[in-house]
């Protein structure tokens, strides 16, 4: 049973550039959430996708955008990168809304983004 996968593992970008991170959910899951984890902090919610639409969004600027594909995989795009965007970006998947189990989120290993 494949878990949540993310690519790439590491990424180095320059300020002002754009980046795309990718996520494939756990088998059987159709909801994908993205989190940003700065060094020494807990993850912060960016947004959540279900049925190819953004359903909820955290307190992040419009430079952060996403997409979900028909196969439930997802992308996180960040434009005009800032030094402060350096972080571990985590993808989590869960079941469709309905029942307690839909609240269980399973995380991938993350993508470490460094902005120089």
């Amino acid at each position, binding site marked *: 049973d494949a878990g*949540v996968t993310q690519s790439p593992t590491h990424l180095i970008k320059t300020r002002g550039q754009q980046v795309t991170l990718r996520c494939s959910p756990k088998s059987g899951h159709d*909801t994908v*959430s993205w*989190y940003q984890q700065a060094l*020494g*902090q*807990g*993850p*912060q*919610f960016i947004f*959540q996708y*279900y049925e190819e639409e953004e*359903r*909820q969004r*955290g307190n992040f600027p419009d430079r952060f955008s996403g997409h979900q594909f028909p196969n439930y995989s997802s992308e996180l795009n960040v434009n005009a990168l800032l030094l402060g965007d350096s972080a571990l970006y*985590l993808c*989590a998947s*869960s079941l469709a*809304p309905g029942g*307690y189990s*839909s*609240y*269980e*989120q*399973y*995380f*991938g*290993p*993350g993508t470490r983004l460094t902005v120089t």
Partner: protein
Amino acid sequence: AQSVTQPDIHITVSEGASLELRCNYSYGATPYLFWYVQSPGQGLQLLLKYFSGDTLVQGIKGFEAEFKRSQSSFNLRKPSVHWSDAAEYFCAATPSGSARQLTFGSGTQLTVLP
């Protein structure tokens, strides 16, 4: 504002000793509660969850947590710690009925001494 607080930034215990990691939440209504563990360079692994009912919940790797509504707490415990338990532990919460947006505490780093 909704928040999760982990008062202890770093805890050190000896192998074989018991462990308790503290977590407090501030929500209008009782949220759903979770504990995750993160090893260096890895993602988060779900240890256990609380939705309702029995206030003592069992998880993986021998961990348990107790929900106390009167104290707005959801503390993680383990009777005997193993060296492999050294990691960072995060408490998280989401309001019931929401779209499942998790709010995390700032984490507790656990060091295990031989």
